[in-house]
């Protein structure tokens, strides 16, 4: 870990003479993760059975996005040492020397406070509490405690990535319901097969950095089995919103077909264990896992969006 900065003068001089651009600070926010958070949180907002002022909805979404970005900056501040050891993360602003860990820590801390206050004022304090919990959970529980200690890191830590739709829903309704918990559950169960498929492909990278991902600790066979088990849970869980009427008929069909394909790819990943066929199976599963989540939430968004447009007389 690398939060300890240099002596006062050196740190000061480093900041004064920094060549960091605004783009480097944007990179600290992990924009790709942020876009997924915005997408799923928007689904939570749109899926809520009541409506709020669009300005308040937009502000809540912005606060969730900034909160997620702040978590990313805090994560990078702490993980700079291991990020420098992995090919995937070596070019990040801190390991490449463009931003100091202290700057990233301050940046993430300020944005965390800002985002929680803004969503509290714009929406309600339940949403603010959930966002604050998410930031703390990701940056402290996952980054500091779980990531370097247990192969269950991304299973438990996945809760942070699964919370945005719950926060979006709570921002509108002020409550947590079965429907919002379902959205949380889908992302939570989706996270292990998604990340472990990647970990199968990048196990050397993680091993070099000393991050105890499942393939490095329990072996690839056990990882493939666990991927299959989680996929077997995910496929039926993805259909449940159709039963609760959160999703319509289109959602039901898409969830059924996509869930079946997910399970098929997980089965292939389980069966093909050697050589390029094994890598290919893991790569296919990883790629499809992104499409799966996108499809489910996009259909949900489209269905609820259409209902909203009809409600406001913009459609039908």
């Amino acid at each position, binding site marked *: 870990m690398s939060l300890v900065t240099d002596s*006062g*003068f050196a740190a*000061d*001089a480093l900041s*004064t*003479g*920094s*060549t*960091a*651009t*605004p783009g480097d*600070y944007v990179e600290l926010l992990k924009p790709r993760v942020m876009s997924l958070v915005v997408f799923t949180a928007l689904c939570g907002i749109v899926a809520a059975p009541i409506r709020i*002022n669009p*300005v*308040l909805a937009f*502000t809540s979404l*912005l606060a969730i996005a900034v909160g997620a970005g702040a978590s990313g900056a805090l994560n990078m501040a702490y993980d700079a040492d291991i990020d420098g050891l992995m090919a995937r993360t070596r070019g990040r602003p801190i390991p490449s020397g463009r931003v100091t860990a202290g700057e990233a820590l301050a940046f993430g801390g300020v944005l965390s406070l800002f985002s929680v206050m*803004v969503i509290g*004022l*714009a929406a309600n304090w339940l949403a603010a509490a959930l966002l604050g919990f998410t930031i703390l959970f990701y940056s402290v529980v996952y980054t500091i405690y779980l990531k370097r200690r247990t192969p269950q890191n991304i299973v438990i830590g996945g809760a942070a990535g699964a919370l945005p739709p719950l926060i979006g829903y709570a921002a509108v309704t002020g409550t947590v319901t079965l429907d919002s918990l379902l959205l949380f559950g889908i992302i939570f169960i989706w996270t292990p097969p998604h990340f472990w498929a990647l970990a199968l492909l990048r196990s050397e990278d993680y091993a070099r950095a000393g991050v105890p991902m499942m393939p490095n600790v329990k072996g690839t066979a056990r990882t493939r089995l666990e991927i299959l088990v989680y996929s077997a849970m995910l496929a039926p869980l993805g259909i449940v919103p159709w039963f609760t009427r959160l999703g319509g008929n289109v959602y039901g069909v898409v969830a059924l077909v996509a869930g079946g394909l997910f399970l098929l790819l997980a089965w292939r990943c389980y069966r093909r264990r050697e050589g390029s066929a094994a890598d290919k199976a893991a790569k296919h599963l990883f790629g499809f896992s992104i499409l799966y989540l996108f499809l489910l939430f996009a259909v949900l968004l489209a269905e609820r969006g259409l209902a909203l447009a009809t409600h406001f007389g913009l459609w039908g």
Partner: protein
Amino acid sequence: MTGKPHRDIVLTPEQLKSRRARNIAIGLVVALLVVLVYVLTIAKLGGHVADRVI
């Protein structure tokens, strides 16, 4: 830290350029924040705010 300014620090053109870019970015973000707080306040007040019982 002595609290005295570091007069011996001379920034390179690249450092000056990136500092200027950061300052502009901070300025824009603060301006957007002001607009956001204003619009948020109007939205929270809602319609007929002048008709309320004081």
